[in-house]
């Protein structure tokens, strides 16, 4: 380990077989159930999933930000070659803020309502970088300029409630960037914002990522948000990554029927109005009692008996960057066969006069 510099040879983040369970009175919730991926320096990864898919828990679990009561966490998280699993909170603290930082969904609740913005930004600067008050203040002002907040000097003395939602999110970004982290988590950073503001915030995050050569993990339920902003996308379903590919590949040649269904169920501006949307029947799996085989099988139009009993492993396609977990992926003979059956059946239904 010591003779070669891990910074050049290993990826920035390497997660393998990460499991994160919560013990509740109803049973064990398998929020994250065996997730593996790696992230290169400067790369941006989008994690997409519906509510309950475990995407938020995954990001917090990697960062070690979950409380430890009733929590079970297993697997390996290598950051810069260092194993994070098993580090004490005290040891993690030197990584938090400095090496990894996080932006949360709701800028309304993520800033301390009774503390001035200047102090909230200065806090990590003084703690990690050992700055004194006036240095920290100057740096904070510069950070606010970086995130394009007008009149930064005046803002430092304001409280969060005196700012608009978009401004608050910028402050959060400034705090997250303060100590120059190498990895930034953004957990639904624009969900609480209006579309016009969302566009600016996404641009800002991306710009800062490139400027500072940071890696980014962008967690969201909105496929549109990750499409234009990430290098790689991982689709999560039922606590697992079910498909992961470089962004363009994922959109052009997805393999997982779930990814397909997800893409086709989103109304798109370019489609004519009243275009019939594809739907996914049923609801996401109960993570206390997940299905025996593939988590998606009970809702999948292409599922076969095997899918209900056996769990598919992640499979690599011809593109080594593109993996998926499915026995009968989009494009396979079985997929086509079932698709034909389905279209015939719907023809029958429509000619038969049924609704």
């Amino acid at each position, binding site marked *: 380990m010591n003779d070669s510099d891990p910074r050049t040879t290993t990826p920035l983040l390497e997660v393998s077989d990460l499991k994160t369970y919560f013990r509740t009175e109803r049973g064990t919730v398998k929020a994250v159930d065996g997730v593996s991926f790696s992230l290169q320096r400067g790369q941006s990864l989008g994690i997409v999933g519906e509510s309950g898919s475990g995407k938020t828990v995954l990001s*917090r679990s990697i*960062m070690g*930000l979950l409380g430890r*009561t009733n929590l079970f966490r297993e697997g390996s998280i290598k950051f810069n070659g260092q194993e994070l699993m098993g580090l004490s*909170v005290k040891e*993690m*603290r*030197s*990584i*938090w*803020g*400095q090496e*990894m*930082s*996080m932006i*949360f*969904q*709701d800028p309304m*609740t*993520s*800033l*301390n*309502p*009774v*503390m001035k913005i200047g102090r909230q930004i200065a*806090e*990590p600067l003084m*703690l*990690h970088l050992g700055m004194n008050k006036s240095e920290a203040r100057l740096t904070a002002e510069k950070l606010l300029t970086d995130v394009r907040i007008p009149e930064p000097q005046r803002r430092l003395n304001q*409280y969060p*409630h005196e700012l608009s939602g978009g401004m608050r999110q910028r402050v*959060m970004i400034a*705090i*997250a960037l*303060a100590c120059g982290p190498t990895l930034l988590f953004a957990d639904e950073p624009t969900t609480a914002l209006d579309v016009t503001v969302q566009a600016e915030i996404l641009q800002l995050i991306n710009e800062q990522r490139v400027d500072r050569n940071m890696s980014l993990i962008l967690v969201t339920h909105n496929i549109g948000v990750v499409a234009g902003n990430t290098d790689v996308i991982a689709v999560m379903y039922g606590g697992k990554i079910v498909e992961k590919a470089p962004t363009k590949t994922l959109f052009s040649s997805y393999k997982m029927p779930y990814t397909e269904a997800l893409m086709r169920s989103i109304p798109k501006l370019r489609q004519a109005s009243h275009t019939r949307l594809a739907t996914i029947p049923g609801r996401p799996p109960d993570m206390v009692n997940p299905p025996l085989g593939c988590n998606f099988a009970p809702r999948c139009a292409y599922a076969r008996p095997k899918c209900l009993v056996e769990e598919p492993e992640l499979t690599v396609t011809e593109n080594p960057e593109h993996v998926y977990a499915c026995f009968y992926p989009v494009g396979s003979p079985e997929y086509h066969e079932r698709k034909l059956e389905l279209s015939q059946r719907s023809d029958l239904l429509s000619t038969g006069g049924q609704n």
Partner: protein
Amino acid sequence: MAILLLLSVSALTFGAMNVLGDPLFNILGPLAGDVNNPKSAALIEEVKVKYDLDKPLPVRYVKWLGDFVTGDMGVQFSTDGQPPVSGLIKERIPRTITLLIMAQLLAVMISIPWAAITAARAGKRSDKISTMNSFFLLAMPNFALAILLKYIFSLKLGWFPLTYKAIDPYFERLRQIFLAAVTIALPAAAVYQRLLRTDLITTLQQDFILMARAKGLSRSRVIFRHAIRPSMFSFITVVGLNTGGLIGGSIVVETVFRIPGIGSSLVESVLREDFPVVLAIVMLIALAFVIINVLVDILYSIIDPRVRR
């Protein structure tokens, strides 16, 4: 608003005292009904004039209010030659105020660290034990707790004097008051602790605490710098509002520990049916309470920048 409230409260108290009660009867006893006896009738007339009972109620109220704000609270009915009510109150009020301040300080001082520790360990065994403790404290009526403490610390251990003597040295009197203050403070501390603990737990679940942790701040910094202050608002309100509860407690506790304060004289005067004293004390307490509530409101807006404009 506060002034309207003060006026309503005082008018209501005055009205209740004079309509529901019969002041004449309280002064003269059975004589008051004896109108056929010319001797009594003359006495009744005399008393009516002396205490303004011949005038209509609103007039009496206005006059009484004027007197009250200038510090004249009338004379005690039942005993001739006693000091005026204001004199009695002036003598006794410092003891009650000492008792209340001491109790409130104790309660706050106990409850804040207690809440911080239990909130940080919410759900663990030590937290559950502490919850049980506060249940026990809350289920103990203050008179019962007073008796218990008196039995243990005064009678069995002899740490605290049994009675309050106005001639005793200051420190000795303070010791007697201290035990009374503890009696009031313990359940109050339990109330405050439970409230602050709940609020702290809520605050600790907020995103900004996660944010503070993600900055790499230490645990104590997260709790004391980030979590305590936003959790203090309802705490302050309740501490303020609970002054009423403490005053109620002081009535009972002063009686048990035989401290001649406002509370014990309220009980005595009710038993003696001495109306001016009851009226003056009830009014004083209600007014103090209203004013405290107003102050709490102001304090609240000073502390919370979101309310400040």
